């Protein structure tokens, strides 16, 4: 017996060897790590990307889709900054839909169903082809830390990689633990190897870690789904892509896209769950990690919303030439046989063959208040953290962070100031500011309501907002930048033209406005003003004014229309941003001693010491810090300035 135990034990590193020097080492090649490594390499840094399994590069262990409200905008932001996610999904989607088309422009959102294996392979291949970038399979056990500064990593095979900066993006691998009913085992996502020793090493180096949980639903064989009587959800006819660089001509006709299907749970399903809650580790007290409210398990839904007799279940394809289907809405941790039973109670799945059970997974996170807005750790210098490691959830949230961590890890090597996106610049800015300022007590997901300037942070204008930054940091080519400037000019020129053209009233136009219940025009009307009427769109406007020399790109038309129709609201938000800008520019010195400031309330002091905000604006967003604390803080900082000049 003892011999067997010896065999099962993981050995410690006893022999090490020097495996090379890098500028940036990225640990973990999920959606955060892939973006981080590509960005650093493309910015000219010698970069190493380490992953526990090469089969898991940019893998989607959960929902096979990219985008949606807020998240889709993040993908476009990543694209505008020179990241990869948008291009990668445009190459590998199997269905594309624009959501919220009936609503205002601020909340329209693109979502794709991904071919998850193609997505992984495409990203892996992009990484393989990248100059300056080395991809290698390895488990990192230890950080090399000297004087609170990271200098490299050590793998379980004893390889020491020296690094100027390190990005940690270890996802749910960190001491991951999977639960299926009574079964419980140590594992990373999708049965990959977990990372155990790195967590211990981080704790030794002074990090506080917390446990979060998430989960995934079962998968079924698509050939065993009965589609009669369940609702088909096809993709869009009208072409849309995530990347601003993907041409319309690349769009897949709907006939080549794969539909999703909608079905529902029912009282029988709910009864199975209620009768067996004692076997659900989420409910019998076995799992104590904190799960996300916005992505509840089916057990959660049945218990918390007991009066609902059905919940939606979306059947989503996982790829082409792949009959595995994702049963969206059925995330759970019930024992395998009950999962099968639950599935069979659902219309369309009566005879479905389950291929893998769903599971709950618990993992370590590094509470993100330990991170600066640059994503560098406050605990250890030159160490950056990104993705689920920081307590977020979602591929897009991970990728956005990974990109920023990669950019700033590279800039740190280059001796440049970090790039910090403001809340008014991007959803990515909202995400990172929320993390570092407020932390999170559940896996953090972006929602449009988290953004106070969501009319500015639109899906359609991500390129306008961020391409200049992407170009400045060297991730956007000159050629693409020129194309961007041309688009920008086309938008501005046409807006100017519409502000000056006057439409003269005639029978045709008056018949049109009267058909919409408006009074006939007596005098002329400025074209832009006419476009502001709810029933007028750009195509209609062109019936009454001369067209441009060249027909405008639909994306240009979109920008113009939004800018003119919602000008009043956009201006109002811009004014708010301008006022905050001055507060954003008031920097708090890094060496400030909050204990020395009389008059700040104790709670405020504690919070300020913990978060260490970098600007007065950030300080004002910390809960528990009062306006009077902020007033005193700004006077205190001003004292220092006056003292210096005197």
């Amino acid at each position, binding site marked *: 017996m003892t011999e067997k135990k010896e065999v099962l034990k993981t050995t410690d590193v006893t022999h090490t060897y020097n495996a090379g020097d890098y500028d940036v080492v990225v640990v973990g090649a999920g959606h955060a790590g892939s973006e981080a490594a590509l960005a650093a390499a493309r910015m000219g840094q010698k970069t190493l990307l380490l992953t526990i399994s090469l089969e898991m590069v940019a893998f989607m262990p959960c*929902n096979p889709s990219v985008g949606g*409200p*807020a998240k889709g905008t993040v993908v476009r932001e990543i694209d505008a900054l020179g990241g990869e996610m948008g291009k990668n999904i445009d190459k590998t989607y199997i269905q594309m839909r624009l*959501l*919220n088309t009936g*609503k*205002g422009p*601020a*909340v329209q*959102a693109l979502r794709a169903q991904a071919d998850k294996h193609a997505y992984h392979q495409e990203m892996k291949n992009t990484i393989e082809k990248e100059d300056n970038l080395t991809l290698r399979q390895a488990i990192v056990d230890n950080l090399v830390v000297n004087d609170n500064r990271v200098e490299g990593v050590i793998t379980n095979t004893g390889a020491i990689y020296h690094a100027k900066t390190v990005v940690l993006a270890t996802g749910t691998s960190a001491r991951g633990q999977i639960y299926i009913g009574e079964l419980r085992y140590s594992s990373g996502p999708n049965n990959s190897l977990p990372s155990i020793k790195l967590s211990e090493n981080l704790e030794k180096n002074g990090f506080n870690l917390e446990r979060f949980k998430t989960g995934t639903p079962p998968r079924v064989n698509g050939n065993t789904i009965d589609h009669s009587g369940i609702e088909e959800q096809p993709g869009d006819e009208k072409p849309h892509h995530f990347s601003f660089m993907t041409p319309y001509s690349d769009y897949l006709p709907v006939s080549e896209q794969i539909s999703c299907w*909608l079905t529902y749970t029912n009282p029988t399903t709910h009864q199975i769950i209620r009768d067996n809650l004692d076997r659900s580790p989420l409910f019998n007290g076995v799992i104590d990690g904190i799960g*996300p*409210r*916005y*992505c*509840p398990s089916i057990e959660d*839904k049945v218990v*918390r*919303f007991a009066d609902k007799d059905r*919940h*939606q279940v*979306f059947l989503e394809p996982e790829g082409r030439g792949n009959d595995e289907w994702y049963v*969206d*809405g059925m*995330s759970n941790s019930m024992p395998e046989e009950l999962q099968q039973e639950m599935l069979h109670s659902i219309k369309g799945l009566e005879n479905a063959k389950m291929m893998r059970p769903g599971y709950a997974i618990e993992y370590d996170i590094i509470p993100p208040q330990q991170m600066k807005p640059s994503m560098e750790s406050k605990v250890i210098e030159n160490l950056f953290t990104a993705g689920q490691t920081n307590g977020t959830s979602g591929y897009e949230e991970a990728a956005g962070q990974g990109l920023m961590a990669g950019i700033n890890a590279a800039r740190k090597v280059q001796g440049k100031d970090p790039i910090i996106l403001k809340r008014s610049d991007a959803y990515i800015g909202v995400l990172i500011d929320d993390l570092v300022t407020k932390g999170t007590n559940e896996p953090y997901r972006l*929602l*449009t*309501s*988290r953004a*106070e300037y969501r*009319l500015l942070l639109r899906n359609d204008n991500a390129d306008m907002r961020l391409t200049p930054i992407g170009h400045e940091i060297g991730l956007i080519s000159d050629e693409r930048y020129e194309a961007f400037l041309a688009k920008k000019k086309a938008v501005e020129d046409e807006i100017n033209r519409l502000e000056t053209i006057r439409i003269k009233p005639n029978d045709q136009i008056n018949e049109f406005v009267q058909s919409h219940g408006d009074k006939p025009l007596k005098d002329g009307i400025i074209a832009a003003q006419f476009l502001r*009427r*709810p*029933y007028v769109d750009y195509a209609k406007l062109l019936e009454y004014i001369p067209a441009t020399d060249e027909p405008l790109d639909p994306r240009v038309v979109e920008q113009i229309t939004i800018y003119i129709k*919602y000008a009043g*609201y956009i201006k*109002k938000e811009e004014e708010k941003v301008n*006022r*905050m800008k*001055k*507060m954003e520019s008031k920097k708090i010195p890094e060496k400030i001693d909050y204990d020395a400031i*009389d*008059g700040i*309330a104790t709670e405020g002091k504690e919070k300020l010491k913990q978060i260490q905000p970098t600007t007065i604006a950030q300080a*004002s*967003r910390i*809960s528990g810090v*009062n*306006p*009077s604390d902020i*007033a*005193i803080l*700004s*006077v*205190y900082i*001003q*004292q220092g300035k*006056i*003292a210096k000049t*005197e």
Partner: protein
Amino acid sequence: MPLMTTDYDTIAAISTAPGVGGISIVRISGSDAMKIAKKIYRGKDLDKVATDTINYGHIVDPANDDSRVDEVMVSVMRAPKTYTKEDIIEINCHGGIQVTNKVLQLVLRNGARMAEPGEFTKRAFLNGRIDLSQSEAVMDLIDAKTDEARKAALNQLDGNLSAAIRKMRQKIVDVLANVEVNIDYPEYDGAEVVTSKLMLDKAQEIKAEIEKLLATAQQGKVLRDGLNTAIVGRPNVGKSSLLNRLLHEEKAIVTDVPGTTRDVLDEYVNVAGVPLHLIDTAGIRETEDKVEKIGVDRSRAAIKKADLVLLVLNSSEPLTDEDRQLLDLTRDSKRVILLNKTDLPMKLDIEKIKAEYGNSDMIKTSAMAENGTKTLEDTISQMFFTKGIASTQNSVMVTNARHISLLQQALDSVQTVIDGIGAGLPVDIVQIDLQSAWDDLGAITGDSYDDELMDQLFDQFCIGK
């Protein structure tokens, strides 16, 4: 998002002490000061008058056909040679507190934000007007006042008002959460789709409710400001001299204002920034003068009405039955015990009084010692600002101008929602203004917190896949 104040808004406040008659000044500071003044001032063109001049004219309500609100003098002080180094406008109002409040509301409605206590001075410092040696004082000022004033404003919030506001906020957040769910989970079928019609109905409901509240706030209750304060004690203990000292030293009796129904037996006084409404001062004089046996009944009535009781004892004589009765009657009141005539030998057992009649602030005073009055003022101020004794009246006093202005802002936002729907804008656009209204109302009750909306969303809807 909760309301955010910045150092760059244009701010305004009544800069003369509250409760004081005669001229009151509404001060506006910031880059929009001139613009705001021009909207509500009719007289010379303020853009053309020289800096540091004072100009005759009228304040009007532009939303109400320019109807005249007050005859005023307006001082124009242009940056940078002003107290805050920003443009400053000071409106000298003549029509009493009620009118001054109305002028302030107009200023706030037309683009200014209510100043935090000490904020003018804070700006003076931040803009380099005050030097380093004074900065400690600035911080103390902010420290001492801001939180207390906020607390005071919250404490003074009438129970009915806050209940009404909470109800409105709940109504709004139901709609907001619903809109958010429609946006973030467009395929979720468990939530009603918020249509323009539904949004319009809700907005109109809320508008009517805010208007109702504003109407009650403006029904001339301003004059009945302040804490109801009863001075009690048996004859000849020195109530009258205490009263006179409070009145004369402050020189701040609010004279009767025509058209109000003020009780002529009452007087108003401003003690260290706290407006006191002294109950039955006539009764005090009367009984002291006549040296007749007064009814404890009269005191009992006063104590019942009082938010604060000043109980005077003669420390040079042992307790009488009447003293005991008064001590007993005021046991549960917010009370300050004044030990008068301490220049004479002490005959009272203070510890025993405390043990038998409950603990209270005790202040030693005598006709000769000035410091007793100062201590009393400090004690009252502390009880008011720090310990938060509240007026039982539906008071709309200076700190509560904040409430009115927030209600007004909320009303304006709701109106914008209604207009936006009329102009055919989508629900998720107009809800920006509905959310501002919700934030403004939350600032009144102090209820808003980060992620409040998010919590509502997840409590109410079973969302997520």
